[in-house]
């Protein structure tokens, strides 16, 4: 069994940041995502638990900052009723940004006909797309009546954990079929920057992290045949074309799989034939499927009980 990995975000200058990535490689950790922005760089990584102080020390020397990022390795769908100015960019984009600060990868999904009360509905394609993620976060509006009585029909067919956000202060039990409800993040027409708005975003991150924690616990009872970051590393080593993909996260990690942003028709065979040092191929350990998102590849890793071993 591999060492226990802890998710961290490093924020620092781009100068000499490769020292961090080199150290990480030596320690057997994984670099999930690297986001350079002018002279700054943000590294999202998984570090072996016992070696965290080493990275922390080096980070301090480089005048950077290492913080825990509990949502690392999750892909969250931020669902807004439509893409109209009523719901975007505030507050749904602020919600997505706040989740990304804790390491999550987010996708904004605007439903085609999610607005309104009686008329709100979601399409089969949209539900399948949402179900490809780890968690779905629905961003709702101001009225308790809508959130309690009308909007939950958008949850139908969503099989992953559901987080709902909205303006009124409700209890989770009041919102049918939602796993968590977070209040005070309703419809606004300005950027969420007041202290009470930011504190409710913090509460949201905390609650999402709790869900992620319990999902990880569930997975650990019947572990994955191979860790998703390990697959990601092999993809980078064995499929050089991934370097030419221009999206921010060419390989996106999920709790129990990955999304590879290469065309399925061309690359699915290569992905299935990824080889591991232990002598197995990925096809034995995971299901490789076409994703509903563009023409990407979706990998869902099988459990130990199905495969019979863990590498």
């Amino acid at each position: 069994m591999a060492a226990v990995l802890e998710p961290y975000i490093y924020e620092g200058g781009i100068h000499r940041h490769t020292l961090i990535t080199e150290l990480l490689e030596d320690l057997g950790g994984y670099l999930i995502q690297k986001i350079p922005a002018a002279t700054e760089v943000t590294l999202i990584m998984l570090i072996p638990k016992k070696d965290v102080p080493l990275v922390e020390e080096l980070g301090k020397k480089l005048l950077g900052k290492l913080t825990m990022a509990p949502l690392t390795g999750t892909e969250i769908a931020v669902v807004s009723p439509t893409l109209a100015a009523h719901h975007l960019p505030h507050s749904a984009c602020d919600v997505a940004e706040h989740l990304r600060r804790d390491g999550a990868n987010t996708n904004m999904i605007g439903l085609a006909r999610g607005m309104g009360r009686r008329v709100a509905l979601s399409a089969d394609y949209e539900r399948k797309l949402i179900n490809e993620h780890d968690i779905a976060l629905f961003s709702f509006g101001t009225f308790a009546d809508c959130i309690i009585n009308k909007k939950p029909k958008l949850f139908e067919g969503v099989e992953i954990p559901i987080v709902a956000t909205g303006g009124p202060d409700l209890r989770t039990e009041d919102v049918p079929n939602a796993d968590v409800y977070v209040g005070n993040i309703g419809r606004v027409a300005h950027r969420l920057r007041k202290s009470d708005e930011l504190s409710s975003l913090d509460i949201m991150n905390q609650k999402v992290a709790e869900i992620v924690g319990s999902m990880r616990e569930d997975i650990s009872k019947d572990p994955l045949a191979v860790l998703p970051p390990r697959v990601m590393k092999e993809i980078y080593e064995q499929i050089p074309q991934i370097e030419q993909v221009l999206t921010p996260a060419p390989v996106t990690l999920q709790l129990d799989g990955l999304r590879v942003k290469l065309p399925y028709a061309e690359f699915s065979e290569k992905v299935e034939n990824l080889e591991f040092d232990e002598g197995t191929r990925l096809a034995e350990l995971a299901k490789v499927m076409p994703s509903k998102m563009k023409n990407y590849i979706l990998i869902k890793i099988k459990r130990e009980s199905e495969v019979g071993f863990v590498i």
Partner: protein
Amino acid sequence: MNALETFIVESAVPQEAEAYRSIVADVISELVLGGAIGRIRIVLRPEDSLFQMAIVLRGSQPPVRLADVADLGYGVMERKEVRISIREEKYLSPLLEKLWARYGRGQVLQPERNTLIVRQDQDPEKEINYLEGMIVADPKQGLQSRLIEMAIRSTPEGFRVRYHSMKENSFIFVASEDMLKPEWIQQAHQMLAELQEEQ
């Protein structure tokens, strides 16, 4: 009447009305309507899928004519040119649009930042008379489209069945998801009448 001297949003739950007031306030400031609206009252009934809004506008400015913002004179007489010296530069671009539409792009020259020369073949004096009375900008036109934009943005998005009535200095907007009941529209007119009676 002062700007936004009455600004009421009503709903069954006071906190929700307060939250909605902040949305409408943001929309108004985004569309720079604060100075144009005198009194506004909104009634929201989410349980009936109903949104009613009545607005009393403050007196708006009259349309801007070319003579108000520019001096007109003759250019080279034998070519029948008209010379326009604009005093307020912010009207230059709408003016150019209008001149291009009338004379064609090639016939309007701009030898200098605030000076335009129009080449044309009519009697210059008649043409100057016409141009002096030409409306360059109509603040009311912009106001109307911004008011409609404001109404659509501040209504809950699913409420696609709409009624509106725009008069000289008032605006009524009713929206719902279902068929509009006549009494809802009547109520909105009643709301407007009450707003107008306020002192």
